[in-house]
């Protein structure tokens, strides 16, 4: 299977795990999408470094975009890429982050270290964060 196909399959599996297997249903929660939108921004930054500098390189046969020649960075945007990384990486990241959070929430639900709960933020941060 290509990387493109694998990521699509991965998303399908992760969504199924959340909604029907573990029944954590984090995909239906505001807290998930708020934290995921923060994560995706930093994914673009760090993944942009890994792919822009060519630390990791992708094979054009496995992705929507094409291979890039040695020593030349991939397209910043376009050719199936977003901030140097193949757009497939967004789905790969979704699978990695969502599977992690499904298991984390599920473990809490069955009683594995539900406590101590997160928060409250330190007083010094209150003004920055606004009211709850």
């Amino acid at each position, binding site marked *: 299977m290509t990387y493109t196909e*694998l990521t699509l399959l991965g998303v399908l599996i992760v969504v199924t795990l959340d909604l029907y297997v573990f029944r954590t249903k984090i995909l239906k929660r505001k807290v998930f999408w708020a934290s995921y939108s923060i994560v995706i921004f930093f994914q673009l930054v760090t993944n942009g470094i890994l792919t822009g500098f060519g630390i990791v390189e992708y094979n054009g046969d496995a992705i929507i975009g094409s291979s890039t020649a040695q020593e030349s960075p991939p397209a910043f945007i376009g050719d199936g890429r977003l901030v140097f990384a193949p757009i497939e990486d967004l789905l790969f990241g979704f699978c990695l982050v969502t599977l992690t959070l499904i*298991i*984390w929430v599920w473990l809490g639900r069955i009683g594995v270290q539900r406590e101590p709960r997160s928060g409250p933020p330190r007083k010094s*941060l209150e003004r920055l964060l606004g009211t709850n």
Partner: protein
Amino acid sequence: MSKFAYLSVLLGCLMGTAWLELFLRTKVYRRTIRLILTILPVLVVFSIWDAYAIAQKHWTFDTRYVTGITTVANIPLDEILFFIVIPICAILSFEAVRSARNWYAGDEDSK
């Protein structure tokens, strides 16, 4: 840029999220058992994916920028650490939002 380029990115991720544990009191590192039990299956699943992708040459690593230490199935040590660091960052972000907003996440009570 050096053999530690990839590792530096991961270190940056850990340092960039550490303040959440301190100032938003996410208490993620403190829930060590839950953290380890979360990471282990994720690490296994994504290492298998990585091993397949490396074998099929979906992606390759520039030997100048990785440690050069490889683990099972030709997976670079750097990648193994990636599958540990990124889940930690994801959980820290998730718990940070909960700390700030008190939104329901589904693990507050038993099913």
